[in-house]
């Protein structure tokens, strides 16, 4: 079990052993296969991984917006729900996806922003009316007050001429402005947790810098918890306090950002970090690489999902047993790794 910030604050959101599978006609895809992590207010958690690692499905599971034929088959999503001034711990995996509590939480207490904001805004309504709608969904404000609040939100995310922008349509805005507007909409209900799914992937590097800056500043001002989902290790290093590294639906390593980048334990994390060129690394020399390609989700390897690409593959162990996410040792309990290099197989699955 993940106990990252043990003894400190009570985490806002704790995900434990989450499993979200898809059941298309052709078989089962274990998109998320046992993810555990937690995040506290004012903290940024990064979920990093490549395509097919299940990072987006994890986010969608938290908000209970997993598309058919996917469903949460196991695990807990414990969230400190604020109701009538009290905090009640609620397992989001157990309550109804369309029930009143989930509707209140989704878009209210937990908000999400996406990679391509164009698809999050309706093309036939001005962005203002959509933000107003979002505001009124979670608060009793009247139309006029909601509009004023919408303009305030746009100003807060650094959009100039906020009043005028309210009447513009999504296609009239540039990529960066659209992403800002998306963030404004997400902020409309003063969320306690903001899930950002590849928020800067579609943006240019200078615009990315603006958006990352904005997110960080908003976090300082509002004290939100941010779950940042990305494949860009640079963004993770800049933004996050703790990091979860995923591969083929499983968390392979988890720890503080410093531990992950400067003391990575899992072979996948290590190789991933070594294989990306950086502005500081030596130019025009061969980079260390990870052999092979990410397997197709239908052809997931037995045992450790990474074993067929792993340079430290131990025949008989890694291809037979599935490693569990465990603390490195008693002392360094804030770094967890799922690898047989660090602990013996416990299950007897052949």
């Amino acid at each position, binding site marked *: 079990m993940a106990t990252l910030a043990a003894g400190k604050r009570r985490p806002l959101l704790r995900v434990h052993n989450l499993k979200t599978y898809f059941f*298309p*006609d*052709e*078989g089962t895809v274990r998109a998320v296969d046992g993810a555990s992590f937690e995040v506290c207010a004012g903290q940024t958690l990064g979920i990093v991984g*490549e*395509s*097919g690692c299940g990072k987006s499905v994890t986010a969608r599971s938290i908000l209970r917006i997993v598309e058919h034929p996917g469903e949460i088959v196991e695990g807990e999503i414990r969230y400190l729900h604020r109701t009538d001034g009290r905090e009640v711990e609620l397992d989001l995996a157990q309550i109804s996806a369309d029930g009143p509590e989930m509707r209140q939480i989704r878009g209210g207490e937990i908000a999400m922003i996406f990679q391509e904001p164009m698809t999050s805004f309706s093309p036939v309504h001005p962005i203002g009316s959509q933000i107003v709608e979002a505001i009124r969904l979670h608060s009793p404000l009247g139309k006029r007050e909601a509009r004023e609040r919408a303009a305030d939100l746009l100003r807060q995310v650094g959009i100039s001429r906020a009043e005028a922008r309210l009447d513009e349509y999504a296609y009239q805005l540039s990529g960066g402005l659209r992403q800002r507007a998306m963030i404004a909409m997400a902020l409309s209900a003063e969320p306690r947790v903001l899930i950002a799914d*590849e928020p800067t*992937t579609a943006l240019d590097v200078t615009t990315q810098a603006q958006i990352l800056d904005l997110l960080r500043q908003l976090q300082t001002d509002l004290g939100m918890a941010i779950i940042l989902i990305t*494949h860009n290790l640079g963004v993770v290093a800049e933004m996050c306090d703790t990091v979860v590294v995923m591969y083929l639906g499983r968390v392979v390593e988890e720890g503080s950002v410093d531990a992950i980048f400067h003391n990575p334990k899992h072979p996948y994390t290590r190789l991933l970090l070594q294989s990306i060129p950086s502005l500081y690394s030596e130019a025009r020399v061969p980079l260390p690489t990870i052999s092979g390609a990410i397997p*197709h989700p*239908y*052809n997931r390897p037995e045992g450790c999902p990474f074993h067929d690409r792993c340079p430290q593959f131990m025949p008989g162990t890694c291809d037979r047993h599935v490693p569990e996410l465990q603390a490195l040792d008693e002392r360094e309990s804030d770094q967890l790794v799922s690898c047989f290099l660090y602990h013996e197989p416990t299950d007897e699955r052949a």
Partner: protein
Amino acid sequence: MAEDHTTRTIESTVAVGGAREEERISVATQWQLTWWRFRKHKVANIAAIVLITYYVVVLFADFFAYADPNLPAAKRGLLPPQPIHLFDDDGWNPHVLAFEGSRDPETFERVYEILGDQPISVQFFAQGLEYEILGIIPWDRHLIGVSDDAGGALAQEHVSLLGTDIQGRDMWSRIVFATRISMTIGLIAVAISQILGIVIGGVSGYFGGLIDTVIQRIIEIVRSIPQIPLLMGIAAAVPKDWTIEQIYFAITILLALILWTELARVVRGRFLSLREEDFVMAAELAGASRMRIILRHMVPSFLSHIIAATTLAIPTIIISETSLSFLGLGLRPPAISWGVLLQQAQNIQTLALSPWLLLPALPVIVAILAFNFLGDGLRDAADPYGT
């Protein structure tokens, strides 16, 4: 991020299992992938079987009919459908019962009295009228007919499976021959319109610029003319003294001239988007000639779409022909098509007294539905790469 959509679509096409299966998919051509996907589409499969049956009937209409569709028989007018009895007192013996017609002296209605004591045995593959299979091989067997041992009695004088029309012509045989005309007029008209559509649309899409603009304006003009009045106008201009064949071809070409615009638009759209595809540019940079790029890269990429579009165009034509003939503007007797047959069912008296004259509507509905389902299935399967 490289989400591998294509592979995913393809692998979800076929249940994945083991290396051998993987190898099979790896070397599968476009047509194989399409076929695998199509086979999963149940309704389309059924529709395909139905349509194959239709065209078997078209090819072997003489075999399926047992009577001359144009032979009037005054004594047998408006005969209701005649049930086939499978058993008699001695056991298995499929037969129909003879009847005697007379006219009601008060209402002048024709009434038929079944003569229960005169069974006429029927059988499959019975001897009957002579004809030539596909116009070549002479034969005299029919799907159903009076038993060979009934002493050479002709089926058309004794059997009327689906009743007869007002002139005493056998409805079953008429529907069979109508199927031949209605189902082929669609094919030929579609073939002509598709050729026009592909060539004009292709030119428009590939060259672009002024040619494209001109062609697009022409298409818009053609499409903006209301179809029914146009058809009525042109059909009315067809000389009265033309033969059945001449009218048949006139109607075919007329329909084709209206329909090509649809496909021309589809083809142009595909050309425009394919022209921008990276693999087309790669071929150009490799030094491939224009001809090669069009024939080897672009056409195969939308051939499957054209097949699907064609399948969906056929029912439009069938309906057009049927409506025209129904209005008396298309084919005219003695030609037989579904529309011609339905035209005879136009008055209220028919509906009340001889509802079986409406039976030709049934094959129309089934054929249209089958074409639409098949077209849908083909369209879904046509693009195994999910582009």
